[in-house]
């Protein structure tokens, strides 16, 4: 009987010691896990801050140098000179910026963005781009027609008259043109448009074919391209670069990210 009691007592002590050890292990693991989670979080946040600040820097360069002004809302407007004379300056700044970031981090900005400077209206998937940035053609290419119409506003230093605006066929295009000395003209609900000066010299050709808008200017003009009344897709409208705009590769932490850069 005494032996059995002794065994129970030993067993009791053993269980108590095991409980202590268990607690010690739990606490030790908790310390370790907690510290690891904090370290992970800080690394994630560091990468996030670098990602965001790189995009912020790109936006600063874009706003300062590209010569393109973007206004977004239910209608998105892009305003720039055509041909855009900022092409070389923008390309140089972007290359310089990429080199600067590269010298410290494994972050790459896709400098080929500046070749056509394609900007995507998301989530509507409408691409606004230049056939060759610095050249005289702008295109807007929607994946699906999820807006009401195009409206193009042209400002030129040529004099316009009553026959300057020539709209052909019916379509989802409105054009207004303002010339020197307060002259102006407009055409609405058309598919093709030509703008002539008062000497019948062709200045601008605008065309909508298969929902793709093309603006081709023979002379320097200021053009605002409005994509009017975007459908409400339940998400905020963003203007972004191509999906390969920014590449972040922190292999030491197992991070790889390829993403667009939000411009507006």
């Amino acid at each position, binding site marked *: 009987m005494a032996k059995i009691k002794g065994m129970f007592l030993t067993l009791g002590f053993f269980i108590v010691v095991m409980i202590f050890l268990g607690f010690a292990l739990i606490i030790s693991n908790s310390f370790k896990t907690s510290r690891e989670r904090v370290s992970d979080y800080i690394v994630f946040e560091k990468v996030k801050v670098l990602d965001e600040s790189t995009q912020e820097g790109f936006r600063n360069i874009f706003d*300062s140098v590209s010569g393109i002004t973007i206004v977004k809302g239910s209608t998105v407007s892009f305003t720039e000179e055509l041909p855009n004379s900022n092409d070389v300056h923008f390309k140089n700044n972007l290359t310089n910026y990429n080199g600067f970031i590269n010298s410290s981090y494994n972050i790459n900005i896709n400098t080929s963005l500046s070749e056509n400077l394609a900007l995507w209206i998301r989530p509507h998937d409408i691409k606004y781009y230049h056939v060759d940035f610095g050249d005289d053609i702008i295109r807007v290419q929607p994946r699906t027609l999820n807006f009401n119409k195009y409206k193009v506003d042209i400002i030129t230093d040529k004099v316009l008259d009553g026959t300057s605006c020539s709209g052909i066929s019916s379509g989802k295009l409105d054009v207004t043109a303002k010339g020197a000395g307060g002259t102006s003209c407009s055409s609405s609900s058309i598919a093709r448009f030509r703008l002539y000066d008062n000497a019948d010299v062709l200045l601008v050709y605008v065309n909508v074919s298969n929902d793709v808008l093309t603006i081709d200017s023979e002379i320097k003009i200021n053009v605002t391209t409005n994509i009017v009344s975007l459908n409400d897709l339940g998400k905020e409208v963003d203007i972004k670069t191509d999906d390969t705009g920014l590449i972040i590769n922190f292999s030491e932490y197992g991070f790889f990210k390829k993403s667009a850069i939000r411009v507006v």
Partner: protein
Amino acid sequence: MEVVKLYWNLHYGNKGQVFSLDAVIAIFLVMVVLISAFFMVNKENEENYELLQQFNLASDLFTVLDVNGKLDSLNKNSIKTSVENILPKNFDYSFRLECENKIIESNRSVSSTLVKGERIVVTNNLDLCIVRYGVWPK
């Protein structure tokens, strides 16, 4: 003596008392262990939260300064004033702004801070810089 033995019901020994005492000690020990465990875990969590708070505070601070163009001047005193206007008084700070042709550093070195952050800055004059920063309780 017999009476006392009877009173304490020790006719069959003092086993009941020993077991009671054993149980009380066991409960006491378990309580001590539990309280110590909670105390230590909380202390550890507190330290971690402090680190996170410092990191987030520093990141938010320099994001606000960058977005609002307060780093654009590349002037040490101007940046220090902007930092001190935003940072809570019970925190100290350090920063180092490394630009292509210029380095601006606060009085304290960034390397002395426990948790450091960094961000890329493009000023309105298109100066390209990296700012490294940290904050900690005074």
